[in-house]
């Protein structure tokens, strides 16, 4: 079992080393901060023009993609690395229109870490701190060791 400082270092390194998976790269993710003990992660995002819906804002699935990123990170970092947390089910509430091409901030957080199930929550804000979307998900812990 890795100790907390090791786990913290491991995940910070993974999330800032510049070799992001394609989906993470597409969403222009930058790590703001994380806490492996409390199980939360905050990141900044920027949606490209390619995510634009007919109304000129971000299409809902791309908003779900941002929240899935930070919520999956929250689910992963509470486990001994390497690990991930595949999403079983996720519900997103689209509270306000989400702009494309503008900085966004998202937070993913563990609600409960069980042996067989993880429950997560997520929030998305604009740069003025207005809540744009909110989500809950159930996931399974999966060790890649």
């Amino acid at each position, binding site marked *: 079992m890795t100790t907390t400082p090791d786990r913290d270092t491991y995940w910070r390194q993974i999330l800032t080393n510049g070799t992001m998976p394609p989906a993470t790269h597409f969403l222009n993710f930058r790590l703001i901060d994380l806490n492996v003990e409390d199980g939360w992660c905050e990141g900044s995002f920027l949606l490209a023009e390619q995510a634009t819906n007919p109304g000129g804002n971000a299409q809902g699935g791309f908003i779900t993609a941002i929240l899935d990123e930070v919520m999956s990170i929250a689910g992963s970092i509470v486990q001994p690395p390497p690990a991930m947390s595949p999403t079983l089910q996720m*519900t997103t509430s689209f509270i306000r229109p989400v702009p494309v091409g503008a900085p966004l901030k998202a937070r993913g957080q563990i609600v409960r870490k069980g042996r067989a199930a993880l429950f997560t929550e997520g929030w998305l804000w604009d740069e003025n701190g207005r809540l744009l979307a909110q989500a809950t998900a159930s996931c399974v812990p999966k060790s890649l060791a």
Partner: protein
Amino acid sequence: MAAQSPEEKPIVSDAEMLARFQNSSKRPPCSDTLGMRLSEINQTNKTIRMDFEVPDMFANPTGAVQGGFIAAMMDEAMSTCCIIASNVTMTAPTLEMKTSYLRRLMPGPAHVEARIVKWGRSAAFMEAECYDDAGKLVAKATATAIPMPFKRLS
């Protein structure tokens, strides 16, 4: 400025409606990003089918499509289903969407079937399923939306 009601606007055949969507010059960027092609419309049953070519850029660390982009495909299909259910007089911004991820989906061909469960004056309820290239069910979704008249100049 006033939007036409579905009752006032002439009904066209499914084939003509499909052709109008396929030939539309007002295709939003998100449709191209997802490699979307509307392939079937049934106005009577309020169902549609959309084909997708999911690009590699939506892969997660395992190489499978990140769940949010599967949600994007189903949102695209359910939203289009609303526009068709209103006979292209209304759009319906999604309020809430719940997605169940049953299997992993690899980048490449996929398709989504979507339908209206209830089309009401103040709320719409939709459902969708996403299938991989082999026809296996990979995800299911339900959503709610608020129908709103298109702001059009005609």
